[in-house]
């Protein structure tokens, strides 16, 4: 773990004005504001709200934090605009860089989204909702875990600098997003005859597939359910840890193999 990378990556998240504005709005103002508005109008919580306060919210905050690859000092080539990280001329291994970067981004992102969940709970309590320490604790831990796996996947994609892989990763991210935002139940309806029925069945299949692919690519752990389950969900945990390790190893391997220079894509 490199202290300099850890410190300056975290600092960049809070001192880069554009990032700060984006993260505050996406991570805090919008979800907390939605909660407030929903409760003050006595309306039911929307799916968008669920999205902002869950793992999709973590992904949105992460996007802001990762823009500009927080904390790297680079040298821009005069010819093609590719960057050469000045920091790698310092005594720093690429594995150390990747792991430290992951830690810093995951911690900052996890902390922001955990804070968001706490604020949402606080707003809820102000309006008479019942929130236990166990529920809040479970949500905080879940956001940290979400931040951990999403940061690893983001880093692997950003550091690989392989166009095919990046296109694939973007597509996979959208599939995951669909699975997260539109559960198959949303398109469930009566068994319609003819073309309408085919359309509904097709939609259900698409969203179910998105959900499954999303779970495979970015598995999460439902902490509250795990806390209250009769048997600890070892399979969920093993899936989560193994996928996280795959992303981190991939990020280290790709960064180690990569040429850090222009014209080498």
């Amino acid at each position, binding site marked *: 773990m*490199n*202290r*300099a*990378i850890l*410190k*300056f990556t975290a*600092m*960049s998240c809070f*001192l*880069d*004005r554009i990032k700060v504005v984006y993260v505050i709005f996406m991570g805090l103002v919008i979800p907390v504001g939605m909660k407030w508005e929903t409760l003050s109008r006595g309306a039911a919580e929307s799916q968008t709200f669920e999205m902002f306060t869950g793992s999709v919210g973590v992904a949105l905050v992460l996007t802001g934090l990762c823009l*500009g690859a927080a*904390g*790297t*000092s*680079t*040298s*821009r*080539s*005069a010819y093609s605009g590719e*960057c*050469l*990280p*000045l*920091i*790698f*001329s*310092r*005594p*720093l*291994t690429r594995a150390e860089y990747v792991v430290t970067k992951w830690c810093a981004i995951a911690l900052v992102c996890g902390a922001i989204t955990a804070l968001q969940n706490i604020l949402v709970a606080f707003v809820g309590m102000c309006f008479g909702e019942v929130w236990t320490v166990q529920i809040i604790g479970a949500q905080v831990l879940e956001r940290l875990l979400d931040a951990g796996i999403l940061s690893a996947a983001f880093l692997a994609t950003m550091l690989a600098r392989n166009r095919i892989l990046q296109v694939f990763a973007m597509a996979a991210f959208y599939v995951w997003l669909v699975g997260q935002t539109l559960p198959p139940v949303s398109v469930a309806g009566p068994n319609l005859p003819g073309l309408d029925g085919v359309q509904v069945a097709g939609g259900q299949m698409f969203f179910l597939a998105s959900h499954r692919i999303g779970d495979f690519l970015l598995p999460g752990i439902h902490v509250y359910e795990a806390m209250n389950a009769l048997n600890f969900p070892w399979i969920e945990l093993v899936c989560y840890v193994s996928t996280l390790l795959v992303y981190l190893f991939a990020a280290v391997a790709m960064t180690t*193999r990569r*040429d*850090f*220079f*222009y*014209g*080498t894509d």
Partner: protein
Amino acid sequence: MQQPGVCIEVRDLSKSYKNGRVQALDSVNLAVYAGEVLGLIGPNGAGKSTLFGCLLGLLRPDAGSVHFDGKPVDYLSVRRITGYVPERPDFEQWMTGRLFLEYHHMLSRCDPSTMAATVEECLTTVELDPAVWGRRLGTYSRGMLQRLNLAQLLVGKPRILLLDEPTLGLDPVGVKIVRKVIRSFRQSGVTAIINSHQLDEIERECDRVAFLRQGKVEKIENLKGSVSGPHVLFLRWTETGSEGQHSSLVRSLAQSMGVTVQEANRSWARVGVAGGEQAARLIREVVAAGVPVEEAVAERARLEKLFESEPGSQGQ
């Protein structure tokens, strides 16, 4: 096996891009001796930047090796003693000048207790106004950023320097600072490679120069040895007398010695001489004739000539 006295050794280094379609470096061999400053010149696309990338261990060569003090470049112990000035640094806009150097101080794994003093010393050496040390880099001018770029080189007191166009974007004062820094490193026996298009800079600061073309080292020139062959002698004097008096005197003395004045004006002349002895004789006679000579220096027009020659016309 590394040659004795060699600090940087590049052996049979090859690097290609686009699946081998573009050969950036083709079996480059280069040895830089300890305490030596080597200039790297060549036309655009010659492979200089690729060579720098390989020297820094940021590019993976297709074949060959680079060793600093007998160790591969990607050893952390080598990185610890290597300083690099990139051509066009891209700074984090949110950082301040002071923070940027603190970052590099930490990355260099220097003693944390020396951080404040080192950062201050580096910023002072590059003559960056203390009023801007705490300002965001987004507000810095290009010249200020170049100075900061140079300041980060000083962090960690490197023993091996790789300077990529170190004077690019600097005003004359900034250029003087770069020279001062290089000279102070030189005095402490640091080994350096300077990649620059500023040929006068290369001539001024380097012991030898390597000319790269089409991924190969075409020629290595010794710049600090005595000048034996025909060359141009540049003479500058203080013009104190009536207009053009000294200029006419220099012209007539040169003519009497059978040498050609290629160019002259009121206070300087460029004279083509046959060799070092003839140059020394001319200087003696000009001084004896009462011309207040300020500067007499051999112009090594060979560097420009390297660019003019046809590819492959000069053997290594």
